[in-house]
């Protein structure tokens, strides 16, 4: 997934990783978590990511000269250490508890998770709901972008630019509707933010 240069291929590989993790959860006797993994991660979150990739028309990353070339030997050494540790763990460590709970199957079921969630972990559950509310408010604040422009501008980025005068076109004579894809472009077309452009160019 990291090796892909196109973010869309990376996203599809990440969906594969999520589904594989769901299979691992099933083998670990956690069917509810596996279902939630497929539904929430591979379904909702990755659909959102792929949607944003499609929306922004992301191009492939071009190959750039690598910075921090002096750190490459250190990175290779650390990777070798990690690999050796994994080999050691897999083949030589035997003292961990060895049997997963295949016979005791009431751990990962929905009922036990719900019972734990609403009795012992009620406070984290409520805090989670608060966090979701904050996420909703934050996403809405990011989505409506009136505050970044001057108050009289009335520019909505997207297909159309309208202010109150532009909407009632019969009141004004010759008004042409401009169509832009970004706030910057719209502001430039309408003659706003001239000073900012000049200062940016001057730098």
């Amino acid at each position, binding site marked *: 997934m990291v090796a892909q240069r196109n973010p869309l291929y990376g996203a599809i590989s990440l969906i594969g990783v999520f589904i594989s993790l769901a299979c691992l959860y099933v083998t670990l006797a*956690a069917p509810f978590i596996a279902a939630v993994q497929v539904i929430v991660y591979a379904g909702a979150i990755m659909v959102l990511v792929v949607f944003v990739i499609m929306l922004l028309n992301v191009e492939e990353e071009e190959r750039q000269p690598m910075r921090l070339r002096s750190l490459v030997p250190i990175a290779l050494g650390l990777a070798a250490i990690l690999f050796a540790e994994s080999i050691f763990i897999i083949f030589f460590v035997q003292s961990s508890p060895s*049997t997963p709970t295949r016979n005791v199957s009431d751990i990962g079921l929905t009922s036990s998770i719900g019972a734990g969630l609403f009795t012992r972990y009620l406070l984290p559950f409520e805090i989670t709901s608060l966090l979701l509310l904050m*996420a909703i408010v934050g996403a809405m604040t990011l989505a409506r972008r009136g505050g970044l422009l001057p108050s009289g501008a009335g520019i909505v980025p997207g297909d159309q630019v309208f202010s109150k005068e532009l909407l009632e076109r019969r009141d004004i004579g010759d008004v042409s509707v401009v169509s832009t894809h970004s706030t910057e472009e719209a502001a430039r077309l309408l003659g706003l933010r001239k000073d900012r452009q000049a200062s940016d160019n001057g730098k």
Partner: protein
Amino acid sequence: MTPQLSWYLALSAMLFTIGVLGVLIKRNVISMFMCIELMLNSVNLTFVAFSSFFRDVSGQLFVFIVMTVAAAEAAVGLGIIIAIFRNRESLDVDDASSLRL
């Protein structure tokens, strides 16, 4: 050979390392975002493995909460990504190195 707990932990460590590597070497914001998701999932795998091997349901509840946090992070993070793209016409993190819009 039945699966050991340490196998899952080793897999989780590898996944986390791959995620960290991706965050460090990627320049695209969306790719870095997906690598963060990968790191969250590796931690989830650790939680579920411990929960299953020690027969305690708490780990799976933590996984549930981590998934909620990841969903909130996805919503807000993708909103920020779209806002940055609208302002800078680029998804490269090096172009967004200053906080000024």
